[in-house]
Each structure stands twice: as structure tokens, then as C-alpha cells.
């Protein structure tokens, strides 16, 4: 009995279950199916705290949301249309996000007294009318999975664990996803355990078949592919994109990469990924702490490597003294800050964008440093390359900012042609530059103001550098007052002058708009989606998003002053606002929420409407 197929243009689905229920994997498979089908998509994994919570408990709930559409989309969606809840705890923590009338699919088998109690329910919500406002599908996922696998030679626990594949099969049917990719992926993943492969595939197929046959689901939905620019695509998370961007920077600079890192959520994955790319000549060093990670990277930079160090807020703070040394030494160093919610340890798995002022100012004395920030998961690739480019060309530490949302969120990514990536190679000094004076390590390039990079091994250029103030030119220790003033200004000027070497701030202007919405970093998607909404409702609003936060693009002042009002939504208490206000004396108004969650475009749309 073929069911009716209904065309829809976008859906947001959230998979939620216990940490042990495999929700992230389920989401990943579904994402791949969706990507291969050609929808545009955006995902948001929502990890619980780092530590494992007891099975069935509220803090143990893990979620994965995917938004896919037949047109280009910008966010993982404010609210799900469909919630798949694998247990009572998942229902409890997620149901408030499901709008009335939304579809709720629950694993009825998991609603045992014990699980209900763990989730803090005093009565069964499936029975007491709490879910009456939703289209509820109670599916005995566990028992149907067990039934489907009864012939397979796996333990009962293993069989029960395949219930996520049953749910995946059901959802794949419901949204007419292609299933080959998932089956192939299961085969590879469990290649060493054929019985597990069999169990998973059987469960998956059973779920799919259940959809086809049960009467509970009357219609099947279809979301057509989205019109993407032509090319080869893959789905990518921000952390993956950063790792690839760094590899690309190493290749495009013809420099071996040295990564100094100390594990920390949500940045560890970059270390882990790069540790797998040793055939690119990449050295990854897991240091004893962040200070050593930064120090080792700086040492490698002195030796001529493309030096990188990665961390998140608390670790970045520890690196700052060494970064200050890098500023004094004027050596290239790329520092990646994958921001998370703070202060102190904060909420390590949750996104926030509150490290901007710290990366700008978190060192003693005047120690300017360029800052770039990625706006989308795929954009992390470009941001990483741009940070490397600036660091190498200007011989300076450069911060590159991402956050926990970009790091783990994913989107389809048009794979760049390596041939078309920028050449970011620079030259090492090979000969003395000072005439009679021999080699002058602080004699600058008149255009970039960068000093020569003379690496050990180069005969005749032996020299000493250090953290004490240095005389212009010779680099010898100097306590001369005027020289100090000169050097302080020179370091500042070098960074400011980079403004000439970066693109202007691009404005998505709309005729008649008097309100400009500015943002930076991972809020790009929600802001852009909100702007679309407002425009669709007839509002007039312009948008601009900063990739370069220090220096700002040259036209920034002009842009800001072209509008009567400027709104800056930030997942902090107003850090970009502060910088713009101080620099341009423009009354930038903040919209600030610090919830450890990405913005919803609906709330931003409301904020924008409120200012029209």
C-alpha cells in the first residue's frame, strides 16, 4: 500500500535520547542521507555536560537537531517540527521546544515507572493528557527492534541498542531519504563485527518497513533538493573545517605545520583530527598544559614552522603571556579559540561568544593582535587560512575565533579547488639586510612593517631576540624612552595597517533601510535568517557581519554612520558593541542573550522589528 506523498519545503527534526542511545550517530546518518539527497541543511548537536550522567536522567539527555529544506537555509531551526524522544527524560527536557501541533514520536517501551521517576515525572505524560496538543506517535521501538533481531546472534542488550537504527529507518521512510549511504556506513563502521552490522541493518530496515506499513503514519513527506551552486559538496562541521583549513594553509604556505595543544572541550577535536594527518608533515604535540602548548608552538615558529595552538577560553587565558611574547618577538603564531560558555569552567559543551575582549586585551601592556572570526561551519575553513595568511605575512600572533556551536554544527560545504586557494607563502631572510651593520632583525618591510623571519640554520643571520624592549632595527635590548614609545606605536600601527589588506565590510543593504544589524562569529545564521523574516514581513533592514575584528575593515565607520540605528546581537553582554562604540562613537544597541545556546531567528526578528 503506497502512501500519499506530500511535498514540503523544509522540516526541523530533533532526535533526543539518553547519552547511551546513540542520538549523535543517528543524527549523523540522517544528515548524510539528507546531504546526499541534495537538500540544504544545518545541524545542531546538543551535548550534555562532558561527564556522563546516569542512564535515563535529565542531565544525560543528548540531542541532535537537523533542519533541511529545498531552498538555502541559515540555521538549524528555532523549534523542531518533529521531536523523536527515546525516553521520558528526553521528552521532559525537549517538549517545551515543540510548538503546539508538532509531531512527537516516542519510544513507548521506555516509559517505564523507573524511567519516569528518573525523569522526575510523577505521572506518565503519555497518559495524563500532557501531550494532547501534539500529534503523538507512540512506537514500541525497543520491542519491535528486539522482535526484528530475534534471529541475529547478538546479546539482548546489543539488540536493544539498535533501536536508534529502527527510529532512523522510520524517519528515513517518513522523509523519503535515500538509504544506501547509511547501510554502507554501518557496514564500514562495524566491519569487524558482522553480527552487529546485521543487527543494525535489520533494525534500520525494520523501521523503514514499519513506516511503510503502519497505519499510524498516513503520509510520507518529500523535500526536494535545494538549488546549490554547482560543484562537489560534503557535509562539514566547524572543527573539521578548521582542521582542513589548517592543512590547506600548510600546503599553501609550503611550511610544515606544528600544532601545540592541550585537550579541552570543544577544541580537542582539532588536535585529534590533525594528529591523523601526519602524512602532511604535520607535527601535533599534546603538551603538559596550555602554556607549554603555546610556548612549543612559538619555539617551532622561531624555527620556521607554521605554528598553531588551539584551545577554548580557560586555556586561552593561560596562553596569553606567551602570546604577548610572540607579539614582542614578532613571530607568526595562530591561536584558535573555540569559545564556550564561561566564566571559569562555565558550561564547557555550550557555545558563547564572550572571549572577544579577552583575545583583544588579555595581555599586559599594549599588545595588539589581529583577530578573525568564522561565521559558519564551512566558513571556519576560510577563517583558518586567513588567520595563517595574516600571521605569516605580518609576523604576528593572530587569533581565530570559533565557538561550540560552529564547532559541532554542520552544513553542506562546496569543496574548494586546491588550485584556487590563495598562495600564502612568505620568504625567510637569507642574507644580511643592514649593510655594514650586518643583520638587523628589527628592520622592517616598508610596506607590511613586518620584520625579517630569519630561521636558525641560516648562516650569517645568527641573532638574539627576546621579551625585553628592543631597539628599532638592531633588536638589541633598549631602555631608551623614545625608542619604547616608537616601538609601542609601531607594533600598533603594524596591526592597524592590516586594514588595507582585508576586504571592506560587505553590507547586505535594502533600499530604504535605516536600521543596520551587525554581528560577528557564529551568530551569522540566525541573524541572516531573522533579517530575511523581517524583510519577508515588509520590514526594511540592512545586515553586515564582521569576519575581521581587529583591525576592522576600513569602511566600517562609514557603514555604521550610513544608518540611523545600529543593532548588534551578541551571545555576550555587548563586546563588539563596546569596540564599535569606542572606535566610531556610534550608538550601537546590543541585543544580548547569554544562554549557552545559539540565537533563535524568531527572537532576533522580534528584536529587529522592535527597532524599526
Amino acid at each position: 500500500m503506497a502512501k500519499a506523498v506530500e511535498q514540503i519545503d523544509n522540516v526541523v527534526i530533533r532526535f533526543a535520547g539518553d547519552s547511551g542511545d546513540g542520538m549523535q550517530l543517528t543524527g549523523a546518518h540522517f544528515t548524510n542521507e539528507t546531504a546526499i539527497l541534495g537538500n540544504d541543511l544545518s545541524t545542531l548537536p546538543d551535548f550534555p555536560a562532558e561527564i556522563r550522567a546516569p542512564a535515563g536522567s535529565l542531565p544525560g539527555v543528548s540531542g541532535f537537531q537537523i533542519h533541511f529544506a529545498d531552498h538555502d537555509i541559515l540555521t538549524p531551526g528555532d523549534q523542531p517540527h518533529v521531536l523523536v524522544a527515546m525516553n521520558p527524560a528526553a521528552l521532559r527536557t525537549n517538549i517545551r521546544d515543540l510548538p503546539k501541533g508538532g509531531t512527537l514520536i516516542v519510544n513507548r517501551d521506555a516509559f517505564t515507572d523507573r524511567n519516569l521517576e528518573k525523569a522526575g515525572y510523577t505521572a506518565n505524560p503519555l497518559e495524563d493528557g500532557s501531550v494532547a496538543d501534539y500529534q503523538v506517535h507512540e512506537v514500541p521501538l525497543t520491542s519491535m527492534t528486539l522482535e526484528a533481531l530475534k534471529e541475529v546472534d547478538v546479546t539482548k542488550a546489543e539488540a536493544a541498542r539498535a533501536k536508534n537504527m529502527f527510529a532512523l529507518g522510520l524517519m528515513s521512510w517518513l522523509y523519503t531519504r535515500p538509504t544506501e549511504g547509511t547501510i554502507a556506513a554501518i557496514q564500514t563502521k562495524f566491519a569487524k563485527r558482522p553480527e552487529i552490522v546485521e543487527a543494525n541493518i535489520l533494525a534500520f530496515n525494520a523501521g523503514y518497513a514499519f513506516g511503510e506499513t503502519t497505519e499510524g503514519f498516513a503520509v510520507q513527506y518529500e523535500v526536494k533538493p535545494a538549488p546549490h551552486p554547482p560543484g562537489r559538496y560534503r557535509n562539514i562541521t566547524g572543527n573539521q573545517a578548521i582542521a582542513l583549513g589548517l592543512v590547506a594553509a600548510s600546503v599553501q604556505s609550503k611550511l610544515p605545520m606544528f600544532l601545540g595543544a592541550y585537550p579541552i572541550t570543544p577544541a580537542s577535536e582539532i588536535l585529534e583530527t590533525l594528529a591523523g594527518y601526519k602524512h602532511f608533515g604535520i607535527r601535533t604535540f599534546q603538551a603538559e598544559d596550555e602554556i607549554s602548548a603555546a610556548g612549543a608552538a612559538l619555539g617551532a615558529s622561531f624555527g620556521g614552522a607554521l605554528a598553531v595552538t588551539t584551545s577554548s577560553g580557560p586555556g586561552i587565558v593561560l596562553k596569553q603571556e606567551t602570546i604577548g611574547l610572540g607579539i614582542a618577538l614578532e613571530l607568526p603564531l595562530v591561536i584558535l579559540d573555540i569559545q564556550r560558555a564561561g566564566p571559569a569552567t562555565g558550561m564547557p559543551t555550550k557555545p558563547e561568544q564572550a572571549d572577544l575582549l579577552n583575545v583583544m586585551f588579555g595581555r599586559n601592556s599594549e599588545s595588539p593582535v589581529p583577530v578573525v572570526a568564522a561565521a559558519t561551519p564551512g566558513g571556519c575553513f576560510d577563517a583558518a587560512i586567513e588567520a595563517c595568511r595574516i600571521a605569516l605575512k605580518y609576523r604576528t600572533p593572530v587569533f581565530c575565533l570559533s565557538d561550540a556551536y560552529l564547532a559541532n554544527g554542520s552544513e553542506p560545504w562546496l569543496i574548494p579547488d586546491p588550485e584556487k586557494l590563495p598562495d600564502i607563502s612568505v620568504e625567510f631572510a637569507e642574507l644580511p639586510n643592514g649593510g655594514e651593520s650586518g643583520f638587523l632583525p628589527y628592520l622592517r618591510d616598508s610596506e607590511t612593517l613586518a620584520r625579517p623571519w630569519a630561521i636558525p640554520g641560516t648562516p650569517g643571520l645568527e641573532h638574539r631576540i627576546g621579551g625585553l624592549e628592543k631597539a628599532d632595527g638592531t633588536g638589541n635590548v633598549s631602555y631608551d624612552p623614545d625608542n619604547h614609545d616608537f616601538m609601542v606605536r609601531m607594533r600598533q600601527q603594524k596591526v592597524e595597517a592590516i586594514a588595507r589588506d582585508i576586504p571592506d565590510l560587505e553590507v547586505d543593504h535594502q533600499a530604504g533601510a535605516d536600521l543596520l544589524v551587525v554581528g560577528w562569529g557564529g551568530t551569522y545564521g540566525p541573524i541572516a535568517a531573522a533579517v530575511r523574516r523581517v524583510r519577508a514581513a515588509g520590514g526594511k533592514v540592512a545586515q553586515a557581519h564582521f569576519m575581521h575584528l581587529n583591525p576592522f575593515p576600513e569602511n566600517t565607520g562609514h557603514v555604521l554612520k550610513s544608518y540611523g540605528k545600529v543593532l548588534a546581537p551578541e551571545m555576550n553582554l555587548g563586546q563588539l558593541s563596546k569596540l564599535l562604540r569606542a572606535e566610531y562613537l556610534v550608538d550601537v544597541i546590543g541585543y544580548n542573550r547569554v544562554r549557552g545556546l545559539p540565537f533563535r531567528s524568531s527572537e532576533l526578528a522580534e528584536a529587529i522589528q522592535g527597532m524599526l
Partner: protein
Amino acid sequence: MSENGQSNGGGGLIQLTAKDFKTDQEVRWCPGCGDYAILAAVQGFMPELGIQRERMVFISGIGCAARFPYYMQTYGMHSIHGRAPAIATGLATSRPDLSVWVVSGDGDALSIGGNHLIHALRRNVNFKLLLFNNEIYGLTKGQYSPTSKVGKVTKSTPMGSLDYPFNPLSLAIGAEATFVARAIDTDRKHLTTVLRRAAEHKGTAFVEIYQNCNIYNDGAFDFVREEEENRLYLEHGQPVGDTGLVHDERAEDPAQAFALSRITWETHGKVPLGVFRAVQRPVYDELMAEQLEAAVEKRGVGDLGALLNAGDTWEIG
């Protein structure tokens, strides 16, 4: 990054002298400071290493001792307090072609830099660390250090220090050091022997040098610096004074070297000098280079296009 290195005397090794290792910077320590003698010894023995100056790097933190790189006509970095071992780890690991030396003080290496030191030692990174131990903070004008004796009256301990000091060699051995030695600033001949041994060692070489700070801690080592009869010069295979021990610097098990490190002026009225421990263990830079080679062997030289296109991809026409 040996690809980038310049020819190490490929065109004929130039024979250098001590003078070639002096810089144009005026040496600035207090008159009478033990640092002068160490500098002279290092500059004096450098030529015999047969390594061109451009292949040598001296890295230091902050302190009187840490001024050292400014006076060596090699590559050098005067970094920040305590971090030289970390910086040297990055440099030495990514540039196996260099001869990397760290110069540090007892505060720099054992106080603020203690963590980097012990981790470098266990990793066996290919650099040599010279610890100028003067049992005081010289540069900041005389506070006690982690090697100062209990009861020491200093600027920050007007009633005497409470902190039980580190024995730098015991600490290093406890941290899995492969090479551990001790020398005296003014005993140039022996110091030179020890430096030579350190230079030959593959991996981290830890050398404690008793250094007199005549301004803030004058005479701290007189018991052995002045009184030669209190010196127990260690020689591999030879008995150690009248301790009944026969010295085996190559013993895999560090227990004996540790026991030797406990022979001090306080316990025995004598102080062992020389190489306490010198064992072979894979060196960090080589291990890392091997993995890089193995990866290339297994997977071919990295191809960016292939990497970008790896995994599930799809084409849009």
C-alpha cells in the same frame, strides 16, 4: 625542517674559536658573578663540537642566568620566565637538525618552570639544559628559591625560609631524565668535560651547575667550590668515594643514580660531581619524525585535494 637548513659546512667546515661565539653585546653581570666563568667555559668548548654557529640555538627564560643567549653568537631567544623548556621543545622537535641549549636559573627552571622541565625530561626532548643553581633569585634582588636551604634568611623570608628545598638531581631522576650531571662554575676543566658529555647525549641532558651569586648568596657552595677535598668526582665503573658503591651511569634502573643524588654535603660532608646518569632512550624528535615518515609510507605524501574530497561527497551539476 631539515629541508630548509643551510649547508652545515657542506662547503668545508670552518674551524671556529671561542671568540667566534662572543657577541657585540657587553656582558652584564655583577663583577665576580659565577655566570662569567660558565660563559667562558661554554664559549671555550663550543668550537670542539664542530657544529656551525647557525645550527646552534640558546633559549632562556628570565633571570640573571637567562641573559646568557645575548652573549652567544648563535641563534638565541631570551623568552619569558620559566617557559624556555616548552619553547625549546617546540623548536627541537620540529628542527632535529639543530643543537638546542636551554640556560636557566633555579627559580626559572624549578619554580615557575618546574612543570615544563619535568615533562621535557620524561619526553627526552633533544635539548641540553644548563641549570645555573645559585640557590637564590638573583635578578629580582635576593628572594629565596626552591633550592634555598631551610631557614635561609632572604628578602622575602626575614625569619628564615620554611620550604624544604628540591634536590634538583633527585627531581630530574624522579622525572625519568636520561642524562643528569653536576658541575661547578669555577672548575672549568671538569665543567667542560660535563658539557661535552651533555652535548654528546641524545635526548634531554640536565646539568646542574653550582653558581656563586656573590651579591645575594655569596659562598653558598664554598664547601665544595672552595674545598676541593669535598668533591667526589664520579667516574663510570669506579667506586664512589667510600660509599661502597661502584658507579654505573648507564644502569637502566635509575635507583642507583637516585641514591647517589642523595649524597650531599649535609648527609656525607661530600658532594658528587660529574655524570650521575646517562642512558639511551628514544628521542622525542626522532620518534615524531618516524611517525611522520611511517604515515607517508602508509598513505603517501598528503594530497590536499584528496583530503578535502574525502568521505561522503556529492556533486551538484
